[in-house]
Each structure stands twice: as C-alpha cells, then as structure tokens.
C-alpha cells in the first residue's frame, strides 16, 4: 500500500486539489491569472510574502491613477447590485474602480485606500449583513488603523418599517469618521424604493470625484470589469420582470394548523430563466382591490382620478392596485399624509415616536386612513405613498428537478382587525387573489451568500424552521439530482407535528433513499415545554461539532429576529463545549466558518 507514495510526494497536487485549482482558475481572466501566478509563487517562496491585494492588479500605468474601492455588504444582493451599477457609472467617468464584497476584503488593506464607497444594508434589529460582520467589527476594534488619507461615501440600504433604519450604514460612517477619514458626501439612507435616489446620488458623487480621480484612459482598467457577471445575469430582473404564470397554490399546513403556509409553483416556461439553489425569487404583486376601495372611501378620493407617478399617468385605482406600497406602513407616509390633511389626532400621534412606531408595526395604510380619515387630493395621496416593491422569497426548488418551474414556500398572512380581513401584500396575492394560470411578474435575485458547498462530498447541516425550510428543499432536490454524496442533516421545527410538518412525505422519502442522513425535529407545541430547533441543536451538539470538524457547511434560513440568533448562540455553545474552547475561541471558530463561507444565513 505504501509503494507508490514516493511518487506522490513529488507530484504537484492530488487529483482533488488539482480539480479545485482548475475550477478556481477557470473563472479568472488573463490579468487575474498573471496575478494569481505571482500570488502562488509568493506563497511558496517565503513567509514574508503578503498577498498582493486585487486592487493593485493593474499595469504600472494604471496604478498611477487613484483607485476607487467600492465595498458592499449584502444579505439579499441589493447592495451588491447597487455596487455593481455604481461601478459601471464610475467606469464610464473613466475612474478606476473595483467592487469587492466585504467578506472578501482584507481589513488591513483599508490603510492603503484613498477613495472608498461603502454600500451596506441593515437587517433585523439594526444588524450588519453576514458578509459585513468581520469588517464592521474590525472598524470598531483596537486593531483598526487611523485613516487620515481616506475619503469615503456611505450608502445605507434599509427599510423604514424597521426601527433601526439603515443602522449599519450609520455605524460605518461613524466609525470611519472616528478613524480620521473624511466624508466625500452626506450619507445616503435608502428606503426600499431606492432606485431614483441612487441615480441622483451617483451623479452628484461622480461630479465630486471628477477632480479627485483624474481620468486616465487605459484598456487595462476596462479589462478589470468581470465579464462573467454580465453574462450570468438574466435578461429579466427587478425592473424587467418575467410574466410567469401560477401553476399551483396549495396550503400545506393541515386543516387544524395555527399557520397557513402555501406551497406555490410558478411556471417560468419560455423565459430561459436560470436560478441556483439558494437564490430568491422576486415577486411583484397587486394590492387587494377591497382594501384599495376602503382607502378610496376613507380619503374621499375617486378611483378614476388621474394621478402621475414618475411622469406617467394612471387612474388612482390602478396606481393603488399596482404601483404603491399599501401593506407595509412607514413614517414617511404618516408625515406627508398629515401635512396634506392637517389631521390633528395624527399630529398628536406623531409626537410620540415610540407609540407611532408601535402603531405602524400593526397597521397597514388602510388602517391609518380609516382611523384618521381625511379628504386628500388624489395626487397628494399618491405622493405620500412610496412605490410598491417586490417581495423576495427563498426558492424552494432546484431546476435540476423542476426544470422551468420555481417553487416557493409562503406564509400566508391573514388576520382580522378593525372589522375586516387583512392580508399580507404578496402572500395574499399568491395565496388567494391569484388564480391558477394567472400571470405574475417575477425575477431571480441571486444570493451567492447561500450556496451549496462546491464539493458535492461536503456534509451540510441545514437549520430551517417554518418557511425557512424552503431553500433546503432546493438543496436536497439539487443534491438528489446530481447524486451528491455529502451527508445532509436537516433541523426543522414548527408548532405541531400533525399539522405543520412541511413537505413531510418528501423528507420521509429522502430519509428512505438515504439522501437525507438525519433529520431533527422540534415541534414546539407538542409538549408542555416548548422545544425549538436550537434545543435540538444543543441535544446533538457533539455530533454537530463532529460534522463541522469533518468540514460540514452550516446553514440557517428563516426568522432573523429570534431564531437565527438563538441558533447562533447554540452553535457557539456547542463549539465551546464539544471543541473544548473558551467563549472567545468558539467565537473565532464560528467567525472562521463564516469567513470560509461554511456558515451561511438566509434570514429575514
């Protein structure tokens, strides 16, 4: 058995290593390959050779020009999209610009930067997205260098319906200023309808940078644009969605369930749309007409009134049905609505910020207009509302299995309040208002932060309670179809075993076939004390840690507010306990998992 070892010692790589290297190299352009060869030589040569960062990957001529580094921290891909489109505009100006994900960025490189644009989103209770966490923490740590030569601009992406709106963007700005950096422009906080403000901001920032980043025309710089991205991007996107059709909408919680969860199948036939397990589907939706009629009545407006949105004329009815956000509430609406109607009670409510936020969190636009009815001009009503935004749902299918279909797992929100039935905007649209065969506008939102391991033999641990199960159904379909050999362990939870075991018979089938190695279930209401996925994780701590030590990837999908945090705490605890580590060491272990993309989250 040992006779051949002599040869292998001198062969460059094992077959597996060679495969990995080839696969990595195949995505590089010629400049990158040249750089990579130097990088590898450097690694082999001496311990002192720090890797040369990608931003210096240019010809000598190009390096004379200051480089604009665009860092993005993205959970769902919006920041990445803004970063890429801003870069395109910067390149048009002749600037030299790089887009880098915060997760790929070496924090120590910051001190070499001169011009920086930070585009970062905020999640849950003011949390930084996963791929921004490391940089975010670095900036606040003692290790952070002084940055007197750095000029920067920050764009925060957020949602005013959350309390800590754009908090991460604010924090980045505060920390950079504290390190001595200079702001190039006022921070831009974007709400969910950010396209037009970003466009204005781009123009104004580029004007400011014109003198700072003197254009030097070099083909080499242009070559840095990763061409591969453009090719992979679909013909259809948020602005240009595909008119798909609904093939099935089925309640998959049983009749006595406290939840109403739908399995939705959408046909993408004819679109050529390609998606990967882990991606999300953006769904445009129409508002409920009954609800719109109530708003018309409460505001004494007429359905046929003509209004303008972005210079296009609509009837008020059409605008409210298809163009404006009505099922989420936001302080901006209250402010404008009050300004136009001079409603006194509403003014009073606005004085107490906490009370207002609480009120908005349980109210839709219809509730506000009914509670504070007032006559308002149709155009003023429209101007007070923000544009409707599509909802993103983690895709629950793999095209390896379903081909030109896409499946979703949607929690249908429906409740009685103020004397009538309220529904979630998109969930009500998908679950009840849309009939099978009806059209709906969709697009795929890539999520490279939630991907199966590149190696099909890598084990995975999936934590997906509730609708968090969705991407793992996609993962299992993919691994089934591709005959991936890696072990798969699913943690699922919901209120009741008999009512809420989503896709039960499919998991039973995968267990039987051996695709699913283990399943750990937590049905919170089936016993006196509530049991959740994090409790199951703790119970199986030893084995989970063994899997991690075998290289397992660890995924969480679902509720960001509580579940994801509880699971992360359970993960830290089990790593500490079974890895015999201090709290700090466990944290570092998990941080390393995250850095090496072995710990990925899709939480909302």
């Amino acid at each position: 058995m040992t006779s051949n070892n002599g040869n292998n010692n001198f062969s460059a790589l094992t077959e597996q290593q060679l495969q990995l290297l080839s696969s990595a190299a195949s995505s590089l352009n010629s400049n990158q390959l040249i750089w990579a060869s130097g990088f590898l030589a450097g690694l082999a040569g001496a311990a002192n050779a720090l890797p040369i960062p990608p931003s210096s990957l240019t010809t000598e001529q190009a390096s004379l020009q200051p480089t604009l580094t665009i860092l993005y921290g993205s959970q769902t891909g919006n920041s990445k999209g803004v970063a890429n489109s801003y870069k395109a505009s910067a390149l048009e100006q002749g600037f030299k610009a790089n887009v880098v994900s915060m997760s790929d960025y070496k924090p120590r490189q910051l001190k070499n930067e001169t011009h920086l644009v930070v585009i970062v989103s905020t999640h849950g209770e003011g949390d930084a997205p996963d791929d921004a966490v490391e940089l975010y923490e670095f900036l606040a740590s003692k290790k952070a260098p002084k940055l007197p030569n750095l000029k920067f601009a920050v764009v925060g992406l957020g949602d005013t319906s959350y309390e800590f709106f754009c908090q991460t963007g604010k924090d980045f700005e505060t920390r950079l200023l504290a390190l001595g950096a200079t702001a190039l422009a006022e921070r831009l906080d974007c709400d969910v309808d950010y396209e037009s403000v970003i466009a204005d901001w781009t123009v104004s920032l580029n004007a400011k940078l014109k003198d700072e980043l003197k254009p030097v025309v070099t083909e080499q710089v242009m070559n840095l644009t990763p061409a591969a991205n453009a090719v992979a991007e679909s013909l259809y996107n948020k602005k240009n969605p595909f008119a798909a059709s609904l093939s099935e909408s089925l309640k998959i919680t049983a009749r006595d369930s406290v939840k109403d969860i739908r399995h939705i199948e959408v046909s993408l036939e004819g679109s050529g749309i390609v998606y990967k397990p882990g991606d999300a589907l953006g769904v445009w939706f129409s508002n409920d007409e009954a609800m719109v009629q109530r708003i018309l009545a409460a505001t004494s407006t007429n359905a046929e009134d003509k209004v303008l949105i972005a210079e296009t004329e609509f009837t008020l009815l059409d605008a409210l049905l298809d163009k404006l956000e009505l099922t989420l509430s936001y302080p901006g609406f209250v402010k404008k609505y009050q300004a136009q109607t001079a409603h006194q009670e509403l003014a009073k409510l606005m004085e107490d910020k906490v009370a207002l936020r609480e009120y908005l969190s349980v109210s839709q636009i219809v509730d506000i207009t009914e509670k504070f009815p007032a006559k308002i001009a149709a155009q003023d009503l429209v101007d007070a509302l923000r544009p409707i935004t599509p909802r993103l749902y983690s895709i629950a299918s793999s095209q390896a299995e379903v081909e030109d279909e896409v499946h979703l797992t949607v929690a249908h929100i429906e409740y009685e309040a103020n004397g009538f039935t309220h529904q979630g905007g998109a969930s009500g649209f998908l679950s009840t208002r849309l009939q099978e065969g009806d059209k709906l506008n969709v697009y795929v939102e890539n999520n490279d932060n939630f991907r199966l391991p590149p190696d099909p033999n890598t084990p995975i641990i999936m934590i997906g309670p509730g609708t968090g199960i969705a991407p793992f159904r996609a993962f299992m379909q993919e691994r089934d179809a591709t005959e991936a050999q890696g072990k798969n362990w699913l943690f699922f939870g919901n209120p009741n075993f008999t009512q809420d075991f989503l896709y039960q018979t499919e998991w039973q089938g995968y267990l039987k076939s051996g695709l699913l190695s283990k399943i750990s279930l937590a049905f919170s209401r089936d016993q006196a004390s509530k049991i959740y996925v994090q409790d199951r994780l703790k119970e199986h701590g030893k084995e989970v840690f063994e899997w991690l030590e075998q290289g397992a990837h660890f995924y969480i999908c679902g509720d960001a507010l509580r579940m994801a945090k509880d699971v992360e705490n359970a993960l830290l605890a089990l790593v500490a306990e079974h890895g015999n580590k201090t709290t700090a060491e466990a944290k570092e272990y998990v941080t390393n998992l995250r850095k090496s993309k072995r710990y990925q989250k899709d939480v909302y």
Partner: protein
Amino acid sequence: MSDDNKFKVEGKLADNERMKGKSHLLRGTIAEDLKDDVTGGFTADNFQLIRFHGMYQQDDRDIRAERTKQKLEPLHNVMLRARLPGGVIQPHQWLVIDKFAADYTMYGSIRLTTRQTFQFHGVLKPNMKLMHQTLHKAGIDSIATAGDVNRNVLCTSNPIESKVHKQAWDWATKISEHLLPKTNAYAEIWLDGEKVDSTQEDEPILGKNYLPRKFKTTVVIPPQNDVDVHANDLNFVAIAENGELIGFNVLVGGGLAMTHGDHSTFPRKADDFGFIELDKTLDIAAAVLSTQRDWGNRVNRKNAKTKYTLERVGVENFKAEVEKRAGVKFAASRAYEFTSRGDRFGWVEGIDGKHHLTLFIENGRILDYPGKTLKTGCAEIAKIHQGDFRMTANQNLIVAGVALEQKARIEALAIKHGLMEASVSNQRKDSMACVSLPTCPLAMAEAERYLPEAVTEIEGLLAKHGMQDESIIYRVTGCPNGCGRAMLAEVGLVGKGPGKYNFHLGGDRQGTRIPRMFKENITDTEIMAHLDELIGRWSKERTASESFGDYVIRAGIIAPVVDSARDFYD
C-alpha cells in the same frame, strides 16, 4: 406420537405467521418505532404487532386524500381497546379514562364497544406510553385485546342475579388471565419494565406463534344473550341452581366474519359441546384454545378461525381432542333458554337490594354533545358513585350497585346530562353499529355516523305503519368482519362501498338465527324503500306479537339460514 398436529394444514404459511414467529414474543421493533419522530405511524410488522398490545394504527380517513396532496402523511394515530373482563370498571378508573380521553385523544370520547370494553380513538404516538402508564396506574391494561390471541372476555351484564353474576364475572376474569400472553413485551415496551430475554420466556398456552387468528370468549348468563354467543369462538353458558353457579355448557365455534365474494367464508353459529363442572373451566378453556392453536389453518387466514376448523375436522373430532387435552368428558348439556339480547334500561333492583341504572348510549360514544353532556355526566356520576360501572356488549353503560339513598342523586345527574332521555324509542335501543368511518381502516361504508339518521327513518316507517311500539333488531357494520354483529340481526347491513350495503334479513331477536342476504350492494335509500314495503306487510300480516325477523321467514320473503356452512349462500 400425539395428535397435536393431526389436522394441521400443510402449505406455505401466511405472512402473519412469519411476523409472529420473528417478533421475539410480540416485541418486534416497536420500541424503535416509538422513537421515530418522522412518522406518526408504525413500520412493517410493528403495524400488526401493536394489535397484540391492544392498539390499531388508524388515521382520519376523511382527510387522507387532502393530506396526501399537502405532502403530509395520513393523520396516523392509534385506537386503544382496553381489557376489561365482563366490562366492569370502578368509578376511580372511570375518572382516569375520562381525563385521558379529554387531554390526549383527537376525538375526546370514550367509546363503549361490542367487546364490552372502551376504546380511545385518536391517540398520537408521543402519547402512547403515557396512555399505557396512566391505565396501568389505574389497574387497567390492553394486553391481547386484538391480534391472534384470546381477546377481552365478555360476561353478561346481569345486575339482578347479583350473586350469579359475581361468580360468572369472576370466571370471566380468571379465563382472561389464564389465556393471556405471558410475554413481558407489554411491560417492557409501554411500562418501561425490565428487559427480559425473550428466548428464556415461554407461552405455554398460546404458543410462541400465538393463535392462527383472533379468538373470542364469553361467559353468558341465560336467559340473556347480550354477549351474542354465536359471534364467539368459545362460550361458557352459566348454569345455576338455587342462585348458585354450578357449571357451564360449553359452546364452541361461533363467528360472524366473512369476506365479500369469498364463499369459503361465512358466519357460523357455535356448537354445544356439553356441560362441565366449574373446576374444569380453565382446563377446558385452555384445551379449546390449544386445539384451535394446533389445528387452526395457518396457511389461509380467511379460513383460520375456530368455526372453519370445526367444519374442516368435524365437531366430534374437535370435541374429542378437547376432552383428551383437558382430561374431562363433557356431560349432557343442561337446559337453558335465551329470550333476549337487549339491555334493560332504567332502574332495576337486584336480589341483594342494590339498585342498577342502565343508561342508553347511542353508538356507545360517550362525548359531550350540545345539550347532551354525556361525558361530563358520567364523570359527575363517577365522582359520587360507590358501586361500579358495567359496560354492556350492546355498548351501553350500567351504573351498578347503587344504594337506595344514592339513587336520587345519581338519577338527577343522569337526567341533567341527557343520559336518561325518556324519548329514546325501542327501535333506537335495539339498533347498533360498529365504529367504521372515519377511523377504522377496514371500513367500506359508514356505520356509526349513519346509524342515528337511519334509525330515525325506521322509526318513521314503523309509525307510518302503526308499529311505533315495536322494534326491529337493526345493526349496521362497516365491513364484513362484522364488529357490529349484523349477522345476528333481524335486519343487518354489511358495508360494501360508500353508501352501499349488503342487506340481510331474517335473524331472530334472541340471536340464534343468522340472517340471509336479501339484496346485494344497494343504497341506503333502496334499503329504506324495501323496509317500507316489508314493515307495511309485517304490520298487516303478522301473527300476534310476531317479530319482524320471524315474519319475513314465515312469509317466505327470505329462506332461513339453517346450516350456514352449507346454505348461507344459497
């Protein structure tokens, strides 16, 4: 060489034989299945093996298709059938089962059954051990109430002949205990009992492969035939002298189950083997059981019951073998007569001066209904009652052994909770159905859920023809296995498909004549049309007090079944 295997049927054994043989005396891998939280059901052999522990895996069939579409498995649960020899249960035990039914069953009911016991319907897997442990603490088990074993032993609910009943009931209990499986499996699996090596255990009476098929035993006190002796494999007919039990006539080989379309199966009445003294009772019970164990057909389960063994080997051969094994000669049968099968509703006074209240429970389903809080009422009675309760083979409940001074309180509670409704007709009291849909996996047509409205229609027909004071023994069973004992009714319906039944006529009121099929596979509406015509004729043509079943025979509307093995399908 012994004659143990003289009449053994050769051939490839039925799969259930492999299952029993490999089960390590009924253990199987039930314990592993209990830990499997991905399914609410049991796998492979365990699905069958839990029956020997008194449970059937069932599901809500009304929503089976809906759940399949929802990517959910059927709503698996178990039905538990308790072992209560003679149907006697103490008030403190009643309160325990009342609470368990409320807290841990999907249907929230206590279901009294034709096997003179109660069933829980809709217990989910995680609650199964709790159920057995709860019952165990209260002194109740469910060992061998299903499966190929001797099942719950019935005993006539006769509260009047108190002394004879007490003696008969003691024998029912002793027989039940004597014929029970001896394996420790039940205790190990459900009660966390100590593990015992099954290879060191023995089943001296049942044998390690248990019986070829289910086996049912009764102790009956004439003139009542409430237990329906002809539906049972083995019957001990109580013979009393001067108010003392002195022995039993032994009837062997009754049974009602059949298979649609298979003429090798048929309902059959029991044969009278003769009289035995009391002290031979257990020996005879064991000898009948072991003869059937060794001679019963283990190749074809459809012909495996004692009744088919008797037909195949001959009654005399079987009887001789029993005498040989028991070391007893049967004496000539003592005279007895059955006059009725129904329960005597309302209060009766026993010879011991105690009072007994028989409550009519429609379908045996004890549950709180709007305006009729039967379950609460029974529990309220249990809280103050100082005697016992007796479940009857007609699915009713007797509050037995009430002292005179308590009568009024108990009656007040019974009235308050709708347990003593004067308006219940004789027809309703003489009607019976098995559980059937939605829980029974064998059901082919509705039974329990159809019965109340069907009885209302028959009441209407009786009234229409001026016969409202009369009744017809009317029974509906959801499938030909016959838990509803339709094959001993004057009018018996056997489920054939949704809304469709085989319509049998011509049984008698005492339960000694099997009814014959009059029309095959017809709708409930067609059946009512036939009954309308037949009741009309009966009202005009009957002789004084002639029963409906006797009338249809005499009038030549249907030929009597005399020797079912040969003439049932004529």
